[in-house]
């Protein structure tokens, strides 16, 4: 992958340089070139990178790096700090309505994910004991209104729509309904539009004038490239955004657009969409995004997720086993069930730095119900001894297990292989963590 490990690359650069003795300013500049390339490959806007590198140079050629034993890590640390500074240090929340009902208006380009995000936001508010009303103001895209109705049903949030009436009329009537229905937030889904389409941008300006939304949030696809600055700048200049929502972060994009958008609009990113499911919606943490842009993975999110589903005692025990490589099939099954609660495995693997390569062999291990049932059947057909000492599994035993579980020998072989791979993977994660020098309590890194 082109994206893999800026930190590794930097360490390599410095290792080479160190062989020749003392580090010089020139060496640090060479390292900063790597940083610059990494940021560009992460889709941070060219101009933003330019500004950033000049402030980085100032700090990095300082004594901190030159004297350090681990200059690579020092550089990363400085870059990370600067990115966090740029991205906004702390998490930014949605404004509370002082005179309910008030509107949150979602705006953005076509296909950025506004409709899904509207439903996610409404669900999020509902869970926080608010009373949102979804408003279908996308009168252009075929079936956009139907889509919002379906999502409203799924989330059990009422939806106001009025066919293809003018958005102003729709929103005005939605306000009436919100008042009489005791709603506090209106979440308005607007049609996707280009920031250079004057007519459609005017439509939004009018909505803003008439209804003074509490928030105007720009919905941005995390995979956006260099154009993110143009989009964010135009929308902000024309509408005065109050925040941003970044979508499709469940992919493998590094998401440099987040930085670009922030840099040109100075608006905080408030939420991140992380999947097609309606609860795949999270507060946005600038520091985690900074790590992600640098290709350092998203350890923190992972840790939080793991802690969310794992029983601490159990996970500590597992962690020990994994380090000593005494993992058994019983643990494996347990594991699969817990991992399943954490969401798709692919997502998790991507969050762990340096693991992309190691996890290639796990590609086939997607955890749908059916497969899990099969794995369960196979493991249950093993004897206790086999579960605890998988090395005894010779071919006649494998055949017996296949018959017993109603699967094929290939299935059994595959599970055994995946189990071995998992064991290996864990050993790597184990050493990776040790290498970082801080052991995470209660974390089962998977």
């Amino acid at each position, binding site marked *: *992958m*082109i*994206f893999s490990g800026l930190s590794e690359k930097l360490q390599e650069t410095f290792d080479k340089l160190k062989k020749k003795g003392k580090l010089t300013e020139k060496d640090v500049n060479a390292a900063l070139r790597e940083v610059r*390339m990494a940021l*560009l*490959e*992460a*889709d941070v*806007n*060219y101009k933003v990178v330019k500004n950033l590198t000049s402030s980085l140079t100032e700090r990095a050629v300082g004594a901190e790096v030159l004297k350090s034993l681990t200059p690579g890590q020092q550089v990363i640390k400085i870059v990370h700090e600067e990115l966090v500074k740029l991205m906004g240090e702390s998490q930014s929340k949605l404004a509370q309505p002082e005179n309910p009902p008030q509107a949150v208006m979602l705006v953005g*380009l*076509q*296909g*950025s*994910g506004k409709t899904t995000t509207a439903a996610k936001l409404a669900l999020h508010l509902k869970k926080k004991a608010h009373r949102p009303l979804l408003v279908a103001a996308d009168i*252009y*895209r*075929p*079936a*956009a209104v*139907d*889509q919002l*109705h*379906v*999502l409203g049903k*799924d989330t059990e949030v009422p939806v106001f729509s009025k066919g293809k009436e003018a958005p102003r009329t729709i929103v005005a009537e939605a306000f009436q309904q919100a008042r009489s229905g005791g709603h506090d937030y209106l979440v308005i889904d607007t049609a996707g539009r*280009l*920031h*250079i389409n004057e007519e459609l941008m005017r439509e939004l300006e009018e909505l803003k004038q008439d209804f003074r939304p509490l928030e105007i949030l720009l919905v941005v*696809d995390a*995979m*956006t*490239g*260099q*154009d*993110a600055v*143009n*989009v964010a700048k135009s929308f902000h200049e024309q509408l005065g955004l109050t925040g941003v929502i970044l979508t*499709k972060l*469940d*992919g*493998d*994009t*590094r998401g*440099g*657009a987040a930085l670009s958008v922030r840099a040109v609009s100075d608006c905080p990113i408030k939420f991140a969409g992380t999947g*097609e499911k309606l609860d795949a919606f999270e507060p946005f943490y600038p520091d985690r995004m900074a790590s992600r842009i640098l290709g350092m993975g998203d350890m923190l999110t992972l840790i939080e997720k793991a802690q969310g589903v794992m029983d601490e005692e159990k996970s500590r025990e597992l962690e020990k086993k994994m380090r000593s490589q005494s993992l058994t099939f019983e643990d494996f099954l347990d594991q699969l069930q817990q991992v399943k609660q954490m969401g*798709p495995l*692919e*997502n998790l693997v*991507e969050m762990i730095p340096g693991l992309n390569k190691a996890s290639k062999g796990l*590609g*086939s291990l*997607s955890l*749908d119900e059916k497969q899990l049932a099969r794995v369960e059947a196979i493991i249950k057909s093993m004897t206790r001894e086999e579960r605890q000492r998988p090395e005894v599994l010779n071919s006649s035993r494998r055949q017996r297990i296949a018959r017993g579980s109603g699967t094929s020998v290939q299935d059994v072989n595959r599970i055994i292989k995946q189990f071995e791979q998992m064991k290996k993977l864990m050993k790597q994660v184990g050493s990776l963590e040790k290498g970082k020098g801080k052991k995470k309590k209660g974390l089962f890194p998977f």
Partner: protein
Amino acid sequence: MLEQFKKGLHKTREAFKGRLDHLFKKTEITPDFFDELEEVLISADVGVTTSLKLIEELRQRIQEKKIKEGAAAREELKGLLVELLQEGGSSELHFPETPPCVYLILGVNGVGKTTTIAKMAHHYTQKNKKVLLAAGDTFRAAAIDQLSQWSLATGVDLIKHHPGGDPSAVIYDAVNAAVARKSDLLLCDTAGRLHTKSNLLDEIKKMNRTIGKVLPGAPHETLLVLDATTGHNGIAQARIFHEAVPLTGIVLTKLDGTARGGIVIAVKDMTGIPVKLVGTGERKEDLHPFNPLAFADALLT
């Protein structure tokens, strides 16, 4: 065709008119020229690796050909881009000798798959072809309704099942229907999916196999839809979809915005997959054959 394409790009050009004039009007090529060029290419999402490669190549050619002026360098670079985009064959869509012709349309969420299908349906009905649509997105809320509305607007038939159904089953029925009804062209819509979800890639492989089983030799085109605003992730999308099912082309959408869509150059460079069509708006008329020359010219304007 070129005119149409250019008209599509008109808005973009207006917004950025003369953006690069200062660069290409230079009477002397200094090292700064290459730095600025790097900015031009990377800012157009051509991608870091491919941009650097192109600049290196240009540097050499400038030396070899003793080019002295910005304008001539621009022409040279344009030539390089066109060469890269055209390399390895034509960007014409493939039609089999005997109908039906089947196209499978793929891509991540929201890139414009369904709209592209509507546009293609419109284009080919205008050319008196009998077109059939398959509502293979059974996942996204109201996706089937969306395609239904387009099928009405373009006057073509649609094969659909219920929301939540097996997409391969819809596709299976649709291919059979295309054969039975003697359709010329079947366009298969699919749900948007990220290339990082292996179970969803498996689903695509299955659809692909289903099509081939019912109609050997099909699909005749497997097109990946890429949104022009996409950055480097477009490369990963193309690579991984291509590994799952062999792609025969790219449809580059949303070129009516300010994004230049340069990522298709990196995609071509790294995977060899050619761009075949471009989308320049939300109307059914806004689809055009890809024109490398016009594209390269717009990129450097």
